[in-house]
């Protein structure tokens, strides 16, 4: 019979999770569970006592079911840390300190990616040359994961460390110093991100033309234009905050969330207003601080171009022509 202390929570990388379980519970079989109800029904103490049940992204109801069974050893796996810590089963695991965070680094968070590369070189006992690190940072495979947010679920782009580690493990088995040329044959599938596309526009990188069709096919021209517009408005607000508060991230975040305006004044009936602040992720802001952002004037011009294109398209303009012209205008700002 297993103790509750063995139940654990893992966040982020599936490979790291299974590696950890294999290392720490030798002789145990890891069984991935899709439906907790079926697993509980079929559990047998005669056959399953040496199994760890790895439950992928369980719902709150499933966690409650798991909490009511005390005879199996469970490991809960979550893509991110948005699980409900108030649930009895989770709080017990929290108390026992069995939460392991193997989160993927957020796309653009190169500091964490560098740390991961450093960890790889230690664990596989090899070295990276500087050009290899630069190559990985600009070509690292990415992955889109769904995370819970206030308004439902949203997609988050992260570096696919699992895939990268597999590639590095292969290469490091034949060489003890990896340079950029060693990754020449490594073609990673990247999740085509609208934000990478916008970054390319801002950096005046002409390869954004190659990605245009792909993105339009994937999300449609309406989403493409509106997300681009929203991102540029965000950048405009960011640049404004940066001009006013310099490098004080907290103050800029305060400014972007409109905390300096919202609920400051009384309503028509002289009552205090209770409007929610504008939501903004501080990590997104920190990432943006490390990037070059165009000036307010350039961003304003871009907004005008996008709005004009939206108008053209609403007046039965040709999608193929309008988007191509817009991209040319945006790049030449």
């Amino acid at each position, binding site marked *: 019979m297993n103790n509750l202390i063995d139940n654990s929570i893992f966040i982020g990388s599936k490979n790291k999770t299974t590696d950890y379980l294999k290392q720490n519970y030798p002789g145990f079989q890891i*069984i991935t569970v899709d*439906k907790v109800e*079926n697993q509980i029904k*079929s*559990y*047998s103490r*005669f*056959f*399953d006592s040496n199994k760890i049940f790895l439950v992928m992204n369980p719902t709150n109801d499933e966690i409650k079911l798991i909490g009511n069974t005390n005879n199996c050893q469970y490991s809960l796996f979550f893509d991110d840390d948005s699980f409900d810590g108030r649930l009895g089963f989770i709080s017990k695991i929290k108390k026992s300190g069995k939460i392991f965070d193997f989160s993927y680094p957020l796309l653009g968070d190169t500091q964490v990616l560098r740390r991961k590369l450093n960890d790889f070189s230690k664990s596989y006992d090899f070295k990276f040359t500087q050009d290899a690190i630069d190559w990985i940072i600009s070509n690292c495979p990415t992955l889109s994961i769904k995370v819970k947010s206030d308004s439902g679920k949203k997609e988050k782009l992260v570096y696919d460390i699992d895939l990268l580690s597999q590639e590095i493990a292969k290469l490091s088995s034949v060489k003890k110093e990896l340079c950029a040329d060693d990754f020449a044959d490594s073609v990673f599938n990247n999740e085509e991100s609208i934000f990478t596309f916008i970054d390319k526009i801002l950096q005046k990188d002409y390869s954004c033309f190659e990605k245009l069709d792909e993105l339009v096919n994937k999300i449609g021209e309406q989403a493409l234009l509106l997300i681009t517009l929203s991102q540029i408005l965000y950048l405009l607000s960011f640049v404004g905050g940066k001009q006013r508060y310099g490098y004080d991230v907290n103050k800029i975040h305060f400014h972007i969330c409109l905390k300096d305006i919202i609920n400051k004044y009384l309503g028509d009936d002289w009552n205090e207003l209770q409007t929610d602040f504008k939501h903004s992720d501080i990590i997104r802001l920190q990432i943006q601080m490390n990037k070059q952002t165009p000036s307010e004037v350039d961003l304003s011009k871009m907004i005008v171009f996008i709005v004009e294109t939206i108008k053209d398209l609403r007046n039965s303009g040709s999608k193929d022509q309008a988007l191509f012209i817009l991209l040319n205008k945006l790049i030449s700002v």
Partner: protein
Amino acid sequence: MKFKLDKLEHLHKFQLFNKIEKLKLATRENKTVSSESLIFHTIDNKLYIYISNGISSAYSYICEVEDDFRSFAVDASSFTNALSNFPSNEIQFSILFDENQLVFGNKKTRVSLKTSNVESENINFQDLFLLDNNTFLDLDVNNLLNAIKYSSFSCAPDYDEYPYTSIMFFIKDNNFNSQSSDKHRISMFGEKYDGDNSFLISKAQAELMKEFISKTSSKYTVHKGKFYILWENGGFSCAIENNTHQSVYNTFNQFFDNSELITSFEINKNDILKSLRFISSISSNHNFFMKSSGSQLIFSSSNNEKGAVIDKIQLSEDIVEFEASYLVNHFIKVLDIINKDDTILSFYDYNGYTICIVEDLNFKHLMFPME
């Protein structure tokens, strides 16, 4: 091109073939590009039907046809449905190749179904027809049917963990031996498994095979990951999987070998069945409690909402005292399946748990306690 069929003579055959088609929809998410799955094909003026769902396939002789018959395919479900609902017994079939239609009926009623052309060389008959070089062995039909019958009922449902969802077969001296378990009970038919060469067949495929096995003289072979059964003018094949889970099946033996006998007695299975059905109908509890007291066997079951029920069976002699709880359905199922009325129930101690073993000739069934 025309041919005649007697509906009563062939309906069962088409319905069986349709089961292969139905299994395709259940096992594959996407329907294949062509839904015309039942192939009519001729070899030496003999008309055969052929069907495959990627896992299992079958062919069967239908009738003699003219020289210029060309192969075609129809949707198996529509064809079987139309045929089984057709009002008269004698049905005339006509194939209009130019219009891609199969018209069948009589003067009063007619059915027209869309067909598609099948190039003879594209028909994947090889797996069933071109096995001449293989050594076929005579099939003891009853032996195979029993191997399936005594193991398929204790397989785990499809959603459960592999390999518990399949039946393990091994062939020794041309005899089929099988084992299965859903982790709450174990069924063993035939000899003890000793790491012999073995293969796994899913429960659904095994049940399908059971229906196809002809009682007439048949032969079988295992070739390139498939199990083939051929009989006169017909054949069936299904995919098998290599058994890479020997340790699971070795564990089964451990429960039989490492347990100590508590008590064993002969009892009429109908008495137990009557008692179990009675107590479960009153308490509606999945589990029942069984204990012995002198020469009495006491069955009880309770439910917090409905109350409790108890029933006793008088045995011919005193037995050692024991008590255990088992699943009602599992007990009823195994007693239903065994042939002998007077059966021997044995109770063993395995690491402090009381397990129950029921035996019937080549069949051994073990049930684990629930509490």
